[in-house]
């Protein structure tokens, strides 16, 4: 009995050590990515894209088809996760709630500073899995580099977006980028028409 206990203890110690190393490596990688993000966002042309197609007018950003889908249909499908993003590390990211960050049509410097402030906080102490709700495609390529997901919502109303993404990703809240003001919460939202008769 004693020898089995000893073996169990040794195994436990090894497991704990591996876990700590994994945590340390994860935090280091997150720091590296965060540094790259800071450099990126500090560049005045962070969101500029040199795409040369002459005088053609840009196309439209179309709404996510799920915004046009009956809630009952969405509710019947399996949930999809939202990643934590590569600039942060958490032991159990799946335990963090999913929070939507609404990004309007902002001037690049405002956008950059807003994202930097938010993601600095996210890097230091991850508080949520962030789902960026973008009215335009402007931030997509930058956020995408760091493993963040953007849902392009055009000018769809926030309530409908909350319900739809709640059913798809388990979204709990929608907040503004600049001040983090609460725009929508699943706790106070009207229940979608997807309860059984």
């Amino acid at each position: 009995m004693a020898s089995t206990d000893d073996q169990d203890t040794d195994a436990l110690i090894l497991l704990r050590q591996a876990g700590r190393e994994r945590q340390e490596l994860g935090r280091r990688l997150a720091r590296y990515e965060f540094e790259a993000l800071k450099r990126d966002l500090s560049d005045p042309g962070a969101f500029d894209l040199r795409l040369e197609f002459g005088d053609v007018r840009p196309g439209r950003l179309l709404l996510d088809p799920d915004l046009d889908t009956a809630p009952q249909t969405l509710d019947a499908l399996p949930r999809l996760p939202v990643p934590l993003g590569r600039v942060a590390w958490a032991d159990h990211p799946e335990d963090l709630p999913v929070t939507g960050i609404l990004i309007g049509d902002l001037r690049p410097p405002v956008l950059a500073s807003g994202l930097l402030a938010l993601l600095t906080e996210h890097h230091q102490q991850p508080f949520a899995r962030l789902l960026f709700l973008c009215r335009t495609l402007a931030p997509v390529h930058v956020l995408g580099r760091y493993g963040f997901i953007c849902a392009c919502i055009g000018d769809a109303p926030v309530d409908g977006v909350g319900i739809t993404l709640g059913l798809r990703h388990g979204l709990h809240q929608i907040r503004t980028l600049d001040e983090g003001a609460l725009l929508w919460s699943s706790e106070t939202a009207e229940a979608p028409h997807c309860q059984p008769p």
Partner: protein
Amino acid sequence: MPDSTPAPDFARLRRTLVELCGRDAYLDALLALEDSGLAVAEAPELWHYLERQLTEGRADRLARVVRARLAEAGSYSTQAALADAQAALDHGDPHRAETILRAVFGSDDLPPPVARVMARALAGTGHPEALLHLDRLSDGDSDMALLKVDTLRAEDRLLEAQAHCELFARQFGGDARFQVRLARMAVGLGRWDEALRVWETLCATPGFPRSVALANRIRLLARLERNPEAHALTAEFLLEGPALPDLVTIAATLGMTGLMQAAIADAVQRESRLPLPEGDWPEVCGQLLDLGRLGQVARLASQGLPVGPAVTETLAAARRVLGRDNTSPATPAEAARLQMPDALLPFPPFYAMRRPALIRHPDRARILLVNASLGSGGAERQFVMMVQALLRQGIRPDQIDAALFSVSPDRGRAHFLPELQDTGIRLHDLQSRDGFYRRLDPALEDTCQLLPKPLRGDVVALHDLVAELRPDILHGWQDRAGLAAGFVGAHLGTGRIVLSARNMQPAKRDRGAQIDDRRLYAALCALPNVQLTANSIAGARDYEDWLGLDRGAAGVLMNGLDTARFAILPPRAPNARVVRLVGVFRFAPNKRPLLWLDTVRALQRLSPYDVRPRMVGSGPLRDEILAHASAIGLKHLQIDGGLSEPAAIYGPADVILLMSRVEGTPNVLLEAQAMGIAAAGCDVGGVREAMLSEGPAAGLVLPEDIASEDAARLIQDWLPTALAAPGDARAAFIRDTYSLEALGSGTLGYYGLEA
């Protein structure tokens, strides 16, 4: 060195336990107590407190762990013992419950709460003391009263159970459980209309699940072949939103497999949002396995549904038997194709080779006959005739064993038991034979798990006996017993297997969603040591067509009649006007009794004869027959039942009329003609063969589908000649064709024994 470990804070620990149990964090509570280092002896009240909380909170596994600790420490309270016994019962282990209770409380003078649990434990093990306890406890306790009824039912003492149940139903009026028992027992006793009435009452009983009552009515109506009513009720049933297991049962009963599949598919789609109640998926999967739908069950399991441990084990057995690749259907169509027992077929090649040398000499052969029961049917009568025929051929009684799946007298399955006992052969009631898992080898045990019902139970029950007796000849009587006997015999390498079909092919008989036996039958017939027989030429050809066998592959074993028992009736007076017309048959839909009544009524109207009808028999349509006869104004109808002597059954009769929809070789036509009675019947199965076909005494063959008026006209045309002809020719025909000698020598021939 002073011990630096701080003394445990009992108060804080108790508060922690209270708080954790209050949140249903039972595991945390147990760990907290474990971590405190306090053994039972040091803090018995905390351990007992935790045990009570776990028991009340239904954290059964943890509660058992704690009770085991308490018991180890010698602190096992009577409360704990009772809880352990109850937990054992909940987990389907009545033996353990009994052991605990006896150890702690003894056997006598049990306090009522203990007596109740003991009664359940004993009832679960079939212990004779169970009823003693229940007799005392059932007065004033509806649960114990119900258990008493169920215990009697389990012992097949249906009449007793019914009597007690009627008393209890009055005593505990309002407790619908007794009504449900009454209805079920009425079915067991063959009292269908009574059962229907009870379920109709329950349909209208507030608080009783209407869909359950409707489902039972539908099943009964389907058995009675009152299909339009059954279907109308099915619509009502569906509109009640029935539980899925009930819906599957009804769909299977009515053969509505599309509905079954749609309901299951719907439930699968909803499962993530609206899961079925616990236990429903295991029950549905069990039903599907009973129907042989292994593929569908495998697919449900692969979709992550909670199919339960029993089904999981069955699927594991399937993988062992059939291989993993063959038991992982990816699409609904693939799943539908994986059916049992077809997936086991054809038999392995060695089945054709592995058998002992045939015994040629009759007096050394050991014969095992298998039938479902000894109920009051023609096939059962012929089973007895065959035994008598074999004995007449010189086979000794000690060479013959007969295995019956059930001979319950209350259920009407022992009608011919006395006659068979009189032959002196050994009889085996498979239902009451226990321990039959002892001899099941692991491969066969796996295979048996996969078989549909009733084949699964029949094979398991029969296998043990066959393995013990090792007969040289295994003879299955009728489809159900034949398939089980064939399956077991093929597996055990019995030298000679005879399968005697008694009717037309199963596909022509409406069997709901029951499995298609064709492939199994064909696989058995393909074995060199298996012989299929039918009891008429028409039946033999029909089975050959159904199974794709060559002409002549199916043998013919005509029914046997002890013609000495059937004395020719005196001839009619030459100018007698009265014609006594008898119908002898079970009052069941396939005998078409209402058509019989209508035909006779039409005959009464158009015939110059004074036609006096008489029906002899019993069955579920008796009330309907009486009502219909009255409605159509049928004159002089007499109905008799419960007769056994030929003279009482057939005499005095001038004509016997049979208008069945499905028949094998109808014994009643043979018996009546043996007594010289003129015979008329519809051309189904072996009816034509069973009648004298030439001469003035020839019988009348009516078309299979005929209106009563047309039948009456044909009968009237035939009557004068038939009535005038002496009965000797008929009796001689029967004597020559259906003798016991012919049956016996024919049977020995198919056994491969020299006569």
